[in-house]
């Protein structure tokens, strides 16, 4: 089975063609073409078997120069966990100062991935 998809790793947005075979009931990507870098191949393999995303959002800050600090998942998380992660972030408050790279939440929504601040708010 041939699947066509657009790589989301960078703004080039390469058009990928992936060949997928079902082995023991699970999809297995056997070849990827159209990518200009190794990220494209990795993306197609993940996207067609177990899609993941990096999630970015904000968390409320008390006593800082700004009302909110931007945050991200330190690495990609399973796509189906996105709204669970957002639910956790809605319940979080932090106190200033927060520094770029600070861990705001560890193991968010059971993903094993931390939420880190992406800006310093003093």
């Amino acid at each position, binding site marked *: 089975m041939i699947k066509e*998809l*657009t*790589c*989301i*790793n*960078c*703004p080039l*947005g390469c*058009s990928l063609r992936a060949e997928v075979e079902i082995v023991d009931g699970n999809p297995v990507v056997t070849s990827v073409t159209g990518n200009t870098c190794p990220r494209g191949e990795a993306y197609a393999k993940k996207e067609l078997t177990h899609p993941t*995303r*990096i*999630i*970015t*959002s*904000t968390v*409320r800050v008390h006593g800082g120069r*700004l*009302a*909110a600090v*931007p945050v*991200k998942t330190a690495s990609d998380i399973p*796509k189906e966990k*996105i*709204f669970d992660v*957002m639910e956790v972030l809605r319940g979080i408050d932090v106190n200033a100062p927060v520094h*770029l790279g600070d861990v705001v939440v560890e193991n968010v929504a059971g993903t094993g991935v931390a939420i880190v601040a*992406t*800006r*310093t708010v003093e």
Partner: protein
Amino acid sequence: MKTSVVIVGGGPAGLAAAVSCYDAGVKDILILERDNCLGGILNQCIHNGFGLHTFKEELTGPEYAARYVAMAAEREIPYKLNTMVLNIEPQADGTKLVTAVNTEGLMEITAEAVVLAMGCRERPRGALNIPGFRPAGIYSAGTAQRFVNIDGVMPGKRVVILGSGDIGLIMARRMTLEGAKVLAVAELMPYSGGLKRNIVQCLNDYDIPLKLSTTVTKIHGQKHLTGVTLQKVDERRRPIPGTEEYYDCDTLLLSCGLLPENELSSQAGVQLSPVTSGPVVTSSLETSVPGVFACGNVLHVHDLVDYVSAEASTAGKHAAEYVCNPDHTEARKLRLRTEGGARYTVPVYAEPEKMEPQLKVYFRVGDVYKNAVLTVSALLPDGERKELSRKKKNVMAPGEMEQVFLKKDDLLPLPAGSEIIVKVEGNA
């Protein structure tokens, strides 16, 4: 006050220009920034995908900005925040008089060179001719982005987005993540104005419909927005009667294009391109006013901040060269022209004697072209055409900035009066 180089704007372009100018040996620099912090619009672009070219890793906007703020800080490059530049006036002796204002009052700075790095702003409702009332609840996508990401407040709960520019797509996802219902993204053109990756990860991921060849033809609600009417348009972009669809919503976001912010450039007498609305520049990114350089979104709207940084580094370096080299005699210029699908090029002039071994030329196409062929040729004064390069591309779209390289060795032997033709052909 006197300084070698004034940089107008402390966003990604201004910071990269300042760093490269410093590294090229001119350390007497002043960055003037109107906001209360450096980094520009990147501070509210909290999504990731920045920096793959520049830093070989994927960063969010604030992280990318922080890298350049740190580079400027390491070099102790001075800057003034909350400072608005009011005027730039070329003087008879070749210097530029920069007038700016902040809470300390009015200041006049005499600079040898100026780098324009003011960025762009969003096309407002007033420029779109949407009929109907003027209720609250209608914002540009970037304004909503600031509300949500900086101020931590949501502008509404049921959202329609007009225009499929990248900021609109990014905000469709952002508002959805924060609990709003994004009903549709309507796009007047038959193709998206944003990057393909944003259609995938911002709309498809969240089942948000993209309605092409569709626009808003009515605004409902007097005090606050209560709904909008979407209507299909024909190939001449006229609404088709009978295709009206009512959407019950409290928020309409506009993501209908970005306009380079060139009031200061015009006041300084800088020639602007009617296509990009940005300055006409040479391969040194020098405008029609000697010693005034331009880079980033004030020059032309970019898709990638990485390209802005690269371009700004070039501008900063040439500003430093201008300051270091008191001989300002004009270099030989070859004009770049476009044919077929290419709408414009940046730069508009190549200076073979002054340029680097390779010159990156940015351009955009005016329509979607499939099986496109991109050719660059030299048109000699006697009418002869000499092909310099040829490249095939599967798809070229207006939403994606394209680039092509010119080689110094190809341009040096061309006689004066030759032109460089950048041409795109294909199935529109």
